[in-house]
């Protein structure tokens, strides 16, 4: 059995809040604060622009697969023989079972409860982890629009704790172009200390400082990211389009693990012997 691979190139533009087709829910629940509770769905806000490739076998174009192999026994290791180990020293591990990890997992919750509002300018972008959108679910549209509007006017972001998968995240919810966006934030202990990075303070002269200030002022303009395209990505997409037009696509062979891959004669003989054997039994 083989899936028909459609000839499809990656989308050129990144997702925007209005493009319903691209939205796939990661989580559904409610966002709430005070007495408001709005049913929403969490969807991803970015589609990484990197064009990814599959590794194929050069000879027959079969997509290559990764296997988990034990170097000692030189064999593939099935999932039931795997266990997690936390490395405490080279070749020394502490074993942790799935059950132990599960017992530590935060309780799943269906709410994003905003506990305080903050000015997002106070949050250094170093804390930003991953952006998502919140999309209203049926029945929640009105309240959603109201929240978008109020938060935009207040120019504040809501801070909330929220469980996704196995982890509890600290998130900021803000109003973005008529929608709510949600950014997962790093916890403070994840941020590397900066003491070693900044050089000793104040070495520059006053004259040099004011000159640089002027340069920055002169170079300042509104943020228009569309000016900056990912040139390599554009070139790769162009290359792919050209190849597609020339019908230069190759096809992976049918994976016939299901059917016998042994030599035809041998398989035929085995099947005949099998029929005879079943009759004799």
């Amino acid at each position: 059995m083989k899936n028909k691979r459609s000839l499809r190139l990656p989308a050129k533009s990144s997702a925007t809040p209005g493009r319903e087709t691209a939205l796939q829910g990661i989580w559904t629940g409610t966002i709430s604060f005070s007495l408001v509770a709005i049913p929403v769905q969490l969807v991803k806000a970015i589609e990484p622009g990197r064009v990814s490739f599959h590794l194929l076998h050069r000879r027959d174009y079969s997509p290559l697969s990764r296997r988990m192999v034990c170097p000692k026994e030189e064999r593939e290791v099935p999932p039931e023989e795997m266990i997690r180990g936390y490395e405490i020293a080279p070749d020394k591990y502490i074993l942790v079972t799935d059950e132990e990890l599960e017992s530590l997992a935060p309780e799943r919750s269906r709410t994003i409860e905003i506990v305080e509002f903050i000015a997002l300018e106070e949050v250094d972008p170093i804390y930003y982890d991953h952006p998502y959108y919140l999309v209203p679910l049926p029945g929640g549209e009105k309240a959603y629009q109201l929240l978008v509007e109020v938060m935009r006017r207040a120019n504040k972001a809501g801070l909330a704790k929220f469980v996704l998968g196995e982890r509890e995240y600290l998130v900021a919810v803000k109003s973005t172009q008529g929608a709510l966006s949600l950014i997962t934030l790093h916890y403070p202990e994840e941020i590397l200390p900066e003491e070693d990075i900044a050089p000793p303070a104040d070495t520059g002269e006053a004259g040099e400082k004011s000159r640089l200030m002027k340069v920055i002022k002169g170079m300042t303009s509104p943020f228009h990211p569309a000016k900056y395209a990912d040139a390599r990505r554009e070139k790769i997409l162009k290359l792919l389009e050209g190849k597609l037009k020339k019908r230069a696509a190759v096809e992976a062979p049918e994976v016939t693990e299901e059917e016998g891959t042994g030599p035809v004669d041998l398989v035929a003989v085995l099947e005949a012997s099998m029929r005879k054997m079943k009759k004799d039994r």
Partner: protein
Amino acid sequence: MKKVAEVAGRKLTLSNLEKDLYPSFGFTKAQILEYYRRISPFLLPHLHDRALTLKRYPEGVEKEFFFEKRCPAYRPAWVTTAEVAHGGESLTACLVNDLHTLIWVENLASLELHVPLARAASPETPDALVFDLDPGEQADILACARVALILRDLLSQLRLKGYVKTSGLKGLHVYVPLNRPETTFGDTKKFSKAVAEVLQRNYPDLVTAKMAKEERKKRVFINWSQNDAAKTMVCVYSLRAREKPFVSFPLAWEELEDFAEQDDPERLHVLPADALDRVEKRGDLFRDVLAKKQQLPYL
């Protein structure tokens, strides 16, 4: 506690003899050495000239173990070794060709003895083909017995004789002796894979030829990929490191048929005392695996 013993004319220092290496069953190192001493006339021919992989349990079967493909550097001078290729490198492996080497290896608590299907001098020439029958979740050794009996009948249609032993765990191993210098692992792999796939096609509820865990559920996995120069099989008569010291033990086909009919999986687990009793009465049922010449047809 150490004890100097004389084994076949050589002095050996044996250690921790009173240590119970199977604590939930009760089987000390002294008992293990005694088992291997008594089984050695039957076991040694099967280990002869094969690069041994040690599987050591210094603190017993409930504690950590490790594999050792290299023959330990502190070995006595009389231990025979062979240089074998391993992942593009050469390493020195132990050959267990006599009783004192066997006892020395067991004194290292290598409870399980694993050897390749080829001898060290001709590492690319398997002298047997093996069907490693491994029951998946919710399948048991009785399902393996059914598959082994189907294999026996299919092989006999092809005028090939197979020999069966318990793995000592939950599975069975069917050996097809070849003992011809022309045989390659390419041949045995191709043949065993084709047989496994034909069985899977004819008995889809019972057999799978695929390693994937979900495929193996309720089925017996025929692991044909063991037919490889880089793989080893647990040697016949080796102990296994489970709760109880089960032996990888050869069975007569009629015996297997009876056990399968009685629907009693316990009969397929052989303990050392039983193993010694049976082998001393009826000899080595696996003797022909080392001698019988057979050719794989239609390759």
